[in-house]
């Protein structure tokens, strides 16, 4: 019995401490931010963009949760944000189909949802996207031009079923097939978004293909990994990434990475936040069609990368 009281003491202490933090979070709008994982440059940058925009409008920062790349976790966290009575949720769906139900549920309870990059199957308030498919196509175009419409290309993939990566790859493949029939895709392997794994995968490509002209990695991390592998093998390969995170921009300047599809993630986040505040002021609750806001990425290469100011590097 006495023991039990000890536990109580411990926990009460713990929660009082925590309560301190939570108390301040009770003004204006309660906005939830639920990316696929918060441990990534992109999602971090979004978060910063969102919070800055909210602060500017005198709103407390968003409640950020970490779904750790698991759709189940993200769904249950959606439920949690709903139960917490958020006014609006900014969501980067890990999977379009998997999150549709949650988005429906939220909006049925009068909580507008803004999706980032990945749309869901159900109509909701808005989707602020950098258009993965289009950007993939854009890179394919660049590669095709640089190779003069002929050569061997490999793709470093995201895990199967990871929508963002898949769409980028689809755009890339579609354009090559359409406009550059002589550019051969000699390999496509998954490196699980991971730089270290990308090194091994790239090494594989380099071994398997004595002639490899270009590599498209569906995110910057993997592009950087590919760069490391190419460098240590002493082979020259065009390497394209995706997202345009700060480190990759630097590597583009150093000439290690050829180019990337750069989006100003800060802006994207801010855009979402501004939309959020608008709709909350307007008080609209039901949405028949998703209003898609495209934050178009542009191709950052050695020539134009300098034009990206430090303030918009993330």
């Amino acid at each position, binding site marked *: 019995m006495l023991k039990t009281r000890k536990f109580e003491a411990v*926990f009460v202490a713990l929660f009082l401490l925590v309560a301190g933090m939570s108390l301040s979070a009770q003004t204006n709008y309660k906005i939830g931010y639920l990316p696929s994982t918060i441990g990534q440059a992109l999602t971090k940058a979004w978060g910063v963009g969102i919070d800055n925009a909210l602060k500017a409008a005198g709103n407390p920062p968003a409640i950020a949760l970490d779904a750790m790349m698991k759709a189940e976790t993200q*769904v249950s966290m959606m439920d949690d944000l709903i*139960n917490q009575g958020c006014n609006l949720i900014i969501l980067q769906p890990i999977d379009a189909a998997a999150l549709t139900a*949650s988005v429906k549920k939220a909006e049925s309870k009068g909580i507008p949802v803004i999706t980032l990059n990945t749309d869901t199957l159900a109509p909701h308030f808005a989707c602020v996207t950098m258009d993965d498919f289009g950007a993939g196509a854009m890179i394919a175009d660049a590669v095709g031009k640089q190779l003069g419409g002929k050569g061997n290309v490999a793709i470093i993939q995201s895990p*199967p079923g990871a929508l963002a990566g898949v769409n980028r790859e689809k755009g890339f493949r579609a354009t090559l097939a359409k406009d550059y029939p002589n550019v051969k895709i000699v390999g496509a392997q998954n490196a699980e978004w991971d730089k270290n794994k990308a090194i091994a995968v790239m090494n594989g490509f380099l071994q398997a293909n004595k002639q490899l002209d270009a590599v498209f990695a569906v995110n910057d991390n993997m592009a950087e990994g590919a760069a490391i592998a190419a460098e240590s093998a002493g082979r020259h390969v065009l390497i394209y990434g995706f997202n345009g995170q700060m480190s990759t921009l630097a590597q583009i300047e150093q000439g290690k990475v050829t180019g990337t599809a750069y989006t100003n993630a800060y802006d994207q986040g801010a855009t979402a936040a501004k939309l959020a505040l608008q709709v909350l002021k307007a008080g609209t609750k039901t949405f028949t069609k998703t209003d898609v806001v495209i934050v178009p990425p542009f191709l950052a290469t050695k020539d134009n990368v300098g034009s990206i100011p430090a303030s918009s590097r993330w």
Partner: protein
Amino acid sequence: MLIASRRRLILIGLLLAIGAALSLLSRSFLTLDNLMTLLQEASQTGIVAIGFTLVLITAGIDMSIGAVIAVTAMVCANFLTYTHIPAALFIPMSLGVGLLVGAFNGFFITRFKLPEFIVTLASRGILAGLALIIAVKDSMGFVSNVYIQDPVYLSFGGTIGPVYIITIVFFAMAFLTQSFLKRTRAGTNVYATGANPTAARLSGINTKRSIYGVYMFSGFCASIAAIFISSRMMTAMPDFGIGSEMDVIASVVIGGTPFTGGVGDIWGTVLGTLFLALIKNGILKLGISPYVQPIAIGGIIVVVVILDVWYKSYAEGQARRSARRARESDSRSAAA
């Protein structure tokens, strides 16, 4: 017996204490919606944990449960996209996945005496791959997850009154499994197999059968969970459940079932899962940075298990002392 039930009471006390603390600290904790979600989360882990408990009682371990969820979900997805077989028919079939995997594990464990951990870890890999291979693909050959609309299938994600069906099923399964363990010969055999295999064999128990049984049941439970998860999310993904093993293990161990086998029961596991779900759910409510949340969860798990171990050793020490005293007096009287 007594010790176990006292430990149980302490855990319940903890549960209530934390619950109370949370409802004081967060407005949104003590709402019907939230409590029901909490139970839903707990049930999702719990259904798997029930099967896992039996494995642990035989002093084994099953790392493949997560992957079983994935494969089962994908099987259902295939039925839904490529066939017109009604859900009522193919769901029972897809539950066979878990049974098959369990038999597979049981086979390698019993026939080749391979360590359970590595066998099930291997089948985890095999299944994870399988899930991707059978995943529903689009025209370009990319995994595209179906959006399930079959009403019968979706009904599993639904509620009866405010209570989620999964929760009801969870408690029903808990009750049945518990009575199986305590009230049937097969159940007793499971304990015997875990506590002292040679002795069990000597008393004519077919330990191999018990082992096959528990792994198949564990897989079966995972498959059931898969149905509920996918119908809650209205889709099936090839990575469903993978990685959830750790939550399951934590719940079961917090529930007081040790790795050494021979002891443990389902009500403990139920409490364990509730406990873990409570912590996870509560943490989200407190507006702590998501960075701190894992620290809190990990810390609480360690603390709880430490306290449990402490209490257990203390209580058993007393039991043994009293037994020794009794014995000494007994032998004295006999000697005199």
